[in-house]
C-alpha cells in the first residue's frame, strides 16, 4: 500500500511540475510571441553574461521573486477574508484538474504496470468540467471583495461569460463522449492510437472537428484572455477583477490565467490530438504501416510518449498565445451572441449529427 501511495504521489508531483514548467514557458512566449507578431525583438536586455538563453532565468526566477517581495495591499473597506480567499479559489481548481490528464500510457517497473495518469477516474471528463465550473468563484469573489467599481464590473462580466461558455463547451464535449463511449481521459487517449485505413492515426480531431472548434473557442473564453478578456479589459476596467490585487495574490491570479491556458492545451491534446500518442508507436515499439518495426523497451516508449505529450502541450500553449496577440477584443454583446446564438446551437447540432452518424456507421466498441 505504501508503494502505491508513493507512486501516486510521484505521478501527482510529476504532473504539477510538468504543468508549471509549461506555464513558465507560456509567460516567456507571451513576451517573445507578442514581439514576433508586432515585428519587434522583445525582451532583449535580459541576457546574463551575454548569453541570451540565460535571460530565461529572469522570467522563471526573478519575475516570481519580484512578485513575492512586493507589498500586499488590501484596499480599505474590502472584505478581508474573501479578498484573501479569491486568488486561492482561482488557482486551485485549475491545478487539480490536471490530476485526470494522462501524460503517458503505461510504464513497466519490476513486472508492475504503472498507469501514467495521476488519478484514474471513471468520470474523468465530468471532473474536468466540475473543476472548470468552480474556477469562476475566484473571479466573482475577487471582483466583489475588492470594494472597487472596476473589480465589481470585471467580476460580474467574468461570471456571465464563464457560465455562458461552459455550457457550449460541455455540450461540445458530448460529441467526443459519443465517439469514444467513455468519460475516462486515459481510455480516450488509448483509442486514438488506432489507425484509419492502416496509416492515418485516428486522432479525435478527425472524428469531431466541430467539437474541436467549439472546445477551442470555449476554452479560450474560459481562460479569459483576448479576444475574450472582458473581465479584465485593461483599457476600460484597469485590470478588472484583480485591479485591487498586488504582490503574491496578483501573482496567483496571473498564474491561474496561464495555467488555464496550459489546461486548455492539455485537454485539446488529450481529446483531439491523441494525447501522449506518437504515431505508429505501440507498447513494444514502432510499427510503421510499411511493415518495418523497431522494438523499444517500456521505459523508452514511456519517455517518447511523455515527450510527445509535453511537446503537444507546448505547441497548443504557443498557439493560444498567438491567438491572443492576433485578435482584438470582442464587444460584450458580440461575446454573448457568439456564445448563446453561435456556439450553443452549433454544439447541439454537433451532438445530433454525431449521434445519427454513429448510429448509422457504428464503430466496433473498443
Amino acid at each position: 500500500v505504501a508503494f502505491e501511495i508513493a507512486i501516486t504521489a510521484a505521478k501527482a508531483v510529476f504532473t504539477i511540475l510538468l504543468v508549471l514548467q509549461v506555464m513558465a514557458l507560456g509567460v516567456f512566449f507571451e513576451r517573445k510571441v507578442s514581439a514576433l507578431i508586432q515585428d519587434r525583438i522583445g525582451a532583449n536586455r535580459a541576457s546574463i553574461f551575454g548569453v541570451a538563453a540565460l535571460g530565461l532565468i529572469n522570467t522563471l526566477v526573478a519575475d516570481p521573486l519580484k512578485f513575492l517581495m512586493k507589498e500586499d495591499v488590501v484596499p480599505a473597506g474590502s472584505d478581508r477574508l474573501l479578498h484573501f480567499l479569491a486568488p486561492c479559489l482561482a488557482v486551485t481548481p485549475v491545478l487539480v484538474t490536471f490530476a485526470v490528464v494522462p501524460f503517458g500510457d503505461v510504464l513497466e517497473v519490476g513486472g508492475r504496470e504503472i498507469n501514467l495518469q495521476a488519478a484514474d477516474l471513471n468520470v474523468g471528463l465530468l471532473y474536468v468540467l466540475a473543476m472548470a465550473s468552480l474556477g469562476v468563484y475566484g473571479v466573482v469573489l475577487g471582483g466583489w471583495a475588492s470594494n472597487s467599481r472596476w473589480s465589481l464590473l470585471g467580476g460580474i462580466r467574468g461570471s456571465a461569460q464563464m457560465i455562458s461558455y461552459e455550457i457550449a463547451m460541455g455540450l461540445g464535449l458530448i460529441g467526443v463522449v459519443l465517439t469514444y463511449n467513455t468519460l475516462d481521459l486515459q481510455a480516450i487517449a488509448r483509442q486514438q492510437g488506432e489507425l484509419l485505413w492502416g496509416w492515418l492515426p485516428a486522432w479525435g480531431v478527425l472524428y469531431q472537428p466541430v467539437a474541436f472548434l467549439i472546445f477551442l473557442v470555449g476554452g479560450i473564453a474560459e481562460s479569459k484572455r483576448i479576444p475574450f478578456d472582458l473581465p479584465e479589459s485593461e483599457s476600460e476596467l484597469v485590470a478588472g477583477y484583480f485591479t485591487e490585487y498586488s504582490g503574491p495574490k496578483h501573482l496567483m491570479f496571473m498564474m491561474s490565467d496561464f495555467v488555464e491556458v496550459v489546461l486548455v492545451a492539455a485537454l485539446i491534446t488529450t481529446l483531439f490530438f491523441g494525447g501522449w500518442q506518437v504515431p505508429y508507436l505501440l507498447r513494444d515499439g514502432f510499427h510503421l504501416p510499411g511493415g518495418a518495426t523497431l522494438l523499444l523497451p517500456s521505459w523508452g516508449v514511456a519517455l517518447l510518449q511523455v515527450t510527445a505529450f509535453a511537446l503537444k502541450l507546448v505547441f497548443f500553449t504557443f498557439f493560444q498565445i498567438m491567438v491572443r496577440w492576433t485578435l482584438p477584443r470582442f464587444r460584450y454583446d458580440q461575446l454573448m451572441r457568439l456564445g448563446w446564438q453561435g456556439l450553443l446551437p452549433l454544439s447541439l447540432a454537433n451532438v445530433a449529427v454525431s449521434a445519427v452518424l454513429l448510429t448509422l456507421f457504428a464503430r466496433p466498441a473498443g
Partner: protein
Amino acid sequence: MNALLFLVLAVLTVTAALTVVVHPNPVHSGCALVATLFLLSVFFVGLDAQLVAALQVIVYAGAIVVLFLFVIMLLNLQADVRTLEARPLIVVAAAGALALAVLVLTLVRRATIGPAASIPAGFGETEALAARLFTTYLLPFELTSLLLLVAIVGAIALAQRKG
C-alpha cells in the same frame, strides 16, 4: 466510508450549512452554500457515487450558486440587520424543528442495522447509473426533463413580457 473521515466531513458540512443561514452578509452566505454543496459531493465520492458527485459540483456549486452570487452582486445587497420581529415565524420554526427532532429520534430508535450489502461491480459509475436511468426509471426521467422545459419556457415568457 471511514468513520473518522465521516465525522470530520459531517462537522464541516453542518458548520457550512449553519453559516448559510446565520451569516448576516449575503455574499458570505452564498460562499458557505458553495462549501456545503462541495462537501456533500465529497460524501457522494465516499459512497462510491462518483457520477453523482461530479454532477453535484457541476450543476449546483458550479452553476446555480454562481447565478445566486451574480444576482446578489448586481443588486449590491448589503449585510442586513436581522430583525426577528415576526413572532409567529419563530413559533412556526420552533414547531418545525421539534417535529424534525421527533421524526429523527423515532427513526433512529426503530432502525435496525443489517449486515452491509456488497457493492455490485461498476456501482455508481456512469454506465450503471445511465442503464438504470434509461430503462427502469425512464418515465420519471422524461417527466423531469419536461418539467425543466416548462420552467425554461416560463422564464423566457416572463422576460419577454417585461421587455
